[in-house]
């Protein structure tokens, strides 16, 4: 495996396809399949991201993969990636250790429109791995509480063992700043789980959002969106008050490779964060 410092020969090259070095400063095992990697740029500069953006992670010999940024820029000095082991590159990444160097390009993509969210009640809904990118916004809300109204977090996972960020979820549940409701799809007798069991949609009926001042954000597996959107619309939320972040297999991150098109939109540049009314009529968006 190639795990070497990705530095440039002189003169410095400014190609948009050249990654810069980042060092892994911490690794946390979130589940048996997911790890949280904390990274810093080797040149000491900040990544300069906003909640909702992604990077292209580069491992020499393995290529690149798009990964959502799981931490808020308000947590200065580092950024974090929540990564499921799913293919060759992420398997190679999971084998890496603190102190190793990876390549990064980005940040890319349209972030959450924080100005538009100002003063809004927020309904932040995640399923499975979707909690990783949503965490960047949740942390931002934690750090800038004065900017938002009531914040409700709904998070679903396949099982207790598959639940990401368990400690933070517990903190958010205990925090007066958030209303936080968790659910899992299934439990086994050995899980010792006392929380809600059911699909993420089961958490929505008891809620009483005020439609004209509530914005919902949904991030999760493709199968989740339509069902959650239907529940939110039954609560009176319009498509202009529902925000989604979409997963696509970006190869370049800069609107050139064509792998993330949604009709006329490029998910890597026009998204990955979209207002529902921008994409709900587009074939294949959801």
């Amino acid at each position: 495996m190639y795990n070497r410092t990705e530095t440039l020969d002189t003169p410095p090259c400014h190609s948009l396809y050249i990654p810069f070095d980042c060092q892994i400063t911490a690794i946390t095992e979130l589940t048996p399949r997911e790890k949280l990697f904390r990274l810093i740029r080797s040149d000491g500069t900040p990544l300069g991201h906003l909640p909702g953006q992604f990077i292209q992670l580069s491992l020499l010999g393995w290529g690149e993969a798009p990964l959502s940024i799981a931490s808020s820029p308000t947590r200065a000095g580092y950024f974090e990636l929540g990564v499921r082991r799913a293919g060759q590159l992420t398997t190679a990444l999971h084998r890496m250790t603190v102190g190793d160097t990876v390549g990064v390009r980005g940040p890319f993509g349209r972030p959450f429109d924080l100005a538009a969210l100002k003063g809004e009640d927020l309904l932040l809904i995640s399923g499975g791995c979707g909690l990783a990118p949503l965490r960047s916004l949740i942390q931002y809300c934690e750090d800038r509480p004065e900017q938002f109204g009531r914040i409700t977090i709904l998070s679903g996972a396949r099982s207790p063992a598959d639940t990401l960020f368990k400690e933070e979820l517990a903190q958010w549940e205990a925090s007066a700043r958030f209303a936080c409701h968790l659910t899992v799809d299934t439990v086994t007798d050995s899980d010792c789980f006392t929380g809600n069991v059911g699909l993420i949609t089961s958490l929505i009926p008891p809620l009483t959002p005020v439609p004209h001042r509530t914005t919902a954000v949904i991030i999760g597996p493709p199968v989740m969106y339509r069902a959650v959107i239907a529940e939110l619309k039954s609560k009176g939320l319009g498509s202009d008050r529902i925000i989604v972040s979409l997963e696509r297999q970006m190869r370049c991150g800069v609107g050139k490779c064509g792998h993330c098109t949604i009709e006329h939109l490029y998910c890597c540049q026009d998204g990955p964060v979209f207002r529902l009314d921008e994409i709900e009529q587009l074939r294949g968006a959801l």
Partner: protein
Amino acid sequence: MKSLTPLQLEHFLAHLAERYELRVPILLPDGTRTIGSPDDGPLALLGGAVPGKPTAAFFPQQETIFTAIHGRLSQAPPPPKPLFILGFTATDLECLRFIDRFFADGIRDDLYFRLRQGAVVAGISGYCGAKGTLLPPAAGNCDLELFLAGDTWLVIPYSGTGTELAKELPNAATPEEAELFKCSIPTVPDGGETLLQAASALLCADRVPDSFWEELGERCIACTGCNLACPTCTCFGVQDWRSSTGVERSRTWDSCQLDGFMREASGHNPLGSEALRSRRRIHHKLAADPRKWGEISCFRCGRCDAACPTGIGMMAVAADLVARFG
């Protein structure tokens, strides 16, 4: 406007080779006409558009992004001389104009402009089409154009560079030759353009049922010949190649007709059927691009129709769409 005999043209090209990296229509030993180096085959100006993707001159099928040796990244140095490319037809030049827009938009693609910047593009037209038929003049979209009139190549400059190069040529075109060129410039849209606009309107109005795409998907054998030949297809994949000396990262043309084109790490695939992939190929050029760029991104070069073994190239599909739903 200047004129050249075929022999003078050869001398002109040889003269240009001192300042430019020359790419011209050539005949390869296997009988293929392509745009390539004069070192690789004899000049083959007659016969119309070359069958391959002409924009490969600036967006090659495989292109190294960087090499990494002991973890140190380096990019290839820029070409020692700018490119001079001869052989784009009028429709090819429309394609080039379009992908120039595409690669420049938003975040500028430095790999593309590494070759494109400073390149001189010469169109080709006149009675040099298949069996001596007329290739319509581009009348722009290039630095200069070569128009075959009888045994004479007329040289029509458009850009400052083209004008400077034409100044070096001794013979002015006759008024009759100039008139012949002028009369050859199309003044009305051809039937193909009208057909594509009609098909585009149907797609934009969502008047094409899913059953049509299912039929089309049944006929597609995913050979990807359409994408590989299309001058405005710009999709690519990125991959690393490992060797004993290091790693080379490159980008390679990709095809939206392959099942893994959009497959995500989770396994979800927004283009998970032949029907959806066939729709994407047509819809992207005729409906999505007009919405994003304000123009259809097929310029009727005919390469996909010539390449497709099952007869579902762009013009064939457009004709079918209009006949059935128009």
